[in-house]
């Protein structure tokens, strides 16, 4: 397998505040100042009402597993299988992707409630999901 570095998000003028908050262990979403639509992924315009005005709201960090995959075949040198990636529907509405951190025998599936914890990397802190006790 070719030698590619681990991928990290590329900050730009629109997304930098989102990634900076993650470095402070805050998962946040944009909330439209005009129509209150909460949006994710990050973008400059509200697709519901076309307003450029928005504020940031902090997520509770809690959500429910909407779908998942268990990767067993390596496709990137930076990610060694097996690992489980979750698509989690957060309490605020958006669905967020991150890896699962749980014991191998944990009973985890669609509908399981999870919360965000953080893993720090030099380039970027990234969320992981942990099952609720």
């Amino acid at each position: 397998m070719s030698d590619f570095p681990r991928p990290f998000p590329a900050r730009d003028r629109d997304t930098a505040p989102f990634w900076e908050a993650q470095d402070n262990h805050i998962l946040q979403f944009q909330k439209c100042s005009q129509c209150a639509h909460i949006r994710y992924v990050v973008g400059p315009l509200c697709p519901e009402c076309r307003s450029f005005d928005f504020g940031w709201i902090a997520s509770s960090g809690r959500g429910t597993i909407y779908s998942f995959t268990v990767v067993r075949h390596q496709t990137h040198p930076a990610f060694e299988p097996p690992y489980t990636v979750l698509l989690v529907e957060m309490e605020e509405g958006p669905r967020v992707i991150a890896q699962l951190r749980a014991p191998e025998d944990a009973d985890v599936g669609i509908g399981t409630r999870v919360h965000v914890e953080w893993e720090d990397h030099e380039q970027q802190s990234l969320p992981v999901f942990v099952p609720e006790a």
Partner: protein
Amino acid sequence: MRDNACIVGIGESAYTRDAESPASVLSNQLRAATNAIADAGLETSRIDCLIPSQYGPSTEELAANLGIASLRFATTVHMGGAAAVTSVQTAAMAVTSGYADYALVVTGWNGYSATRTRNVLASNTSVIPGGDIARDYYMPYGLTVPAQWYALIARRHMHEFGTTAEQLGAIALAMRRHAQLNGRAVMRERAMTIEDYLASPVIAHPYRLFDCCLETDGAAAVVVTSAERAHDLAQPPVRVLGAASAHPYPADDITNRRDIFETGLTRAAPRAFAMADIDPADVDFAQIYDCFTFEVLQQIEEAGFCARGEGGAFVEGGRIELGGDLPVNTHGGLLSEAHVLGMNHVVEAVRQLRGGCGERQVPDAEVGVVTGWGDFGDGSIAVLGR
């Protein structure tokens, strides 16, 4: 589309899995292009519209190599695996509107000996529309290839509708059985049982190895012209009765669709069937873009061949095999013939409608459907008739 465009020429290169293959992408595409032009019985200089794929040689390079001095219209469709069918749609628009007379649509890559998808995406996500989203929101968590992205949709479908591994396996088996009747298929003479399928290693749950399309080298091409011009050519014309392309919403993010099963095809298929004045039940065969088995099931549902959630039952019992109600991918598809970005599906549909498929011929085939699936669910569909 009352004044139908027609597909009048088809051509392919060899389809291979050979790491030492001497054939470049350019030479494979030129092989497919010259075969398609010869099949049509056309002088190459008559080609005045060129629609090459986003992968491989440009319009400029192909035109120079083919000795085409004067193009009236050229463009490239950036819709990944949906592009082959959308390119045929674009060619149809060009030749029926008077902007061009004879359009050459060519697609191909060296997907085995050179362009491994996993390596392309690891080095540059901008090759796909929506690539910035993949780079920022999927790749950092180890979702680096389409099998892993789409697995999230497939797993949710299993949860909501009870779709089973055996049903996905039925799709893989149908493609493999059809490939046994196709001398061009890479997987000919490699028969597969449901036990083989279930024993194949998990790539990204719920996808096993045999849920995943092949990586191959090869190219395919078609020539499109107006119905009026088609009658002077060598082959019986295959009419484009209807064609449509569309995107899911949002188009650039798989994960935050309100309806996660929506694809471009959800919107495109009713338009294409209405344009063709054809009901899905009247279709004799379907060549469905089969990047993975579940995407075939999903497109069968979204195209309206059955209701949402019924795709699992639909693909059982040989219904999508030759002799069944709706034979799917009679050439073996991307899963068992070759991965030519869906242009091999167009070629096979034309071949079926000409009646030239030998032992895999669908008897009396009059109407067939070809679909495309691109990247985050872009969709395209053509309804073809003889």
